[in-house]
């Protein structure tokens, strides 16, 4: 055997420990990733940042040592990086070439506390408060001087008007932040630009805008108002 071959044998023997240590490190990092997910101590952004960092460390570890780039000519690294850079550029290009970011221009949750009034004009679907209970109008009518419930039906819950105005969106999610006052509404608007809508919903408890969250999506973009 030549001297060169003996050197090679010695180097390969040293690499065994490098490979073993790297493998253990990869297992430990993957274990850490899973533990982070299980314990759920951190917020979403921290978890994603950690996963991103650990993935990069593992990626570099495998490419640098297992794939021998550390010992190979630099051209191999360049060849691989070319593909990697183009792949990353593709991702960011697609993300940033997408559409306009959605913006919530208005979001209001208002409790309907209108008392029944004699002589008032009511449309079908209107809500009124009468003697501590809420009623919904069954038809268009003018209220008589003496209160009659013929044109009304009693409802369970407290009516709230939820209004939202968005520049552009293809999906709108509205939900209550309070588990004691559950509410979820999903809207897939037919007209996706200049959306200005409002609807009345019955809630278990009285609520204000601060008790609700609106989440809006347009193509790949999400916007959230907390």
């Amino acid at each position, binding site marked *: 055997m030549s001297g060169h*071959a003996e050197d090679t044998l010695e180097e390969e023997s040293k690499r065994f420990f490098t490979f073993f240590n790297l493998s253990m490190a990869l297992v430990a990092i*993957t274990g850490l990733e899973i533990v982070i997910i299980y314990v759920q101590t951190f917020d979403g952004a921290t978890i994603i940042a950690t996963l991103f960092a650990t*993935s990069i460390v593992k990626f570099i570890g495998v490419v640098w040592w297992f794939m021998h780039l550390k010992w190979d000519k630099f*051209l191999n690294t360049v060849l691989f990086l070319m593909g*990697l850079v183009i*792949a990353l550029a593709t991702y960011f290009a697609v993300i940033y070439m997408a559409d306009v970011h959605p913006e919530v221009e208005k979001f209001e949750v208002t409790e309907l506390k209108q008392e029944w009034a004699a002589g008032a004009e009511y449309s079908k679907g209107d809500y009124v408060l009468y003697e501590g209970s809420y009623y919904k109008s069954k038809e268009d009518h003018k209220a008589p001087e003496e209160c009659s419930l013929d044109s009304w039906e009693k409802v369970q819950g407290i009516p709230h008007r939820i209004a939202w105005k968005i520049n552009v969106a293809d999906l709108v999610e509205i939900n209550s932040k309070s588990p004691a006052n559950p509410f979820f509404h999903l809207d897939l608007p037919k007209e996706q630009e200049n959306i200005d809508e409002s609807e009345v919903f019955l809630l278990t408890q009285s609520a204000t805008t601060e008790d609700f969250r609106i989440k809006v999506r347009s193509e790949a*973009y999400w916007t959230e108002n907390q």
Partner: protein
Amino acid sequence: MSDAHALEHHEPVTSTGIPSKKVLMWAFLGSDCMFFGTLISTHLIYRKISGTVGGNALDIRDIFDIELTSFSTFILLASSLFMALAVSAIHKGNLNSTRWMLFGTIIFGSIFLACQVYEFTHFVHGKENASGDREHQLTLKAYAGESEEPGKDAELKPHVFGSTFYVLTGTHGTHVAIGVFWLLGWLVYSFTGKMSPADAMDIECCGLYWHFVDIVWIIIFPVVYLMEYAF
């Protein structure tokens, strides 16, 4: 140093001093990087869009089995160690060790594939609930409410998450399967008595491919699976 091995074994080299086979393999891996980059980007972008299916909210966590996927991730990482040791053994001319390390890589690669087949089968068929109905299914199409046309069956709409998930993980699984067959070929070859340290470059290229499959999974596992549990 690996390139020096190649020169010693009279491998054809390019003008750069790097063996032709290795340049070819790295160029291929660079292009495969773009391929997987596109698939991962597609999944990430459409994941943001496909939070619902036809108006029905979808929680992917009800479908995933993270314990099984974590297990298969550890298996694939372990297989990479076996592969690195197989390459090291052939460089040292230790054929018996090379054979065992190739065998170990094949076994671990096969376990990973078996886990993926099991996972896909369970995702497609879903879980049975108390009333005996199937729920939490992940297919290429999903139930999206009653059909608007009277008399027609329930409407099925394309399910973007199912599509991008199966294409991405399925393509990776296909790469693993190709790698397992490639390694199997080398294992069989090792029993013919023709294998020698002159084959080191070929096994190293096979190893590069196997490690590449591993790094793709290193990205897929957190991005596709773990990230679903982040919020």
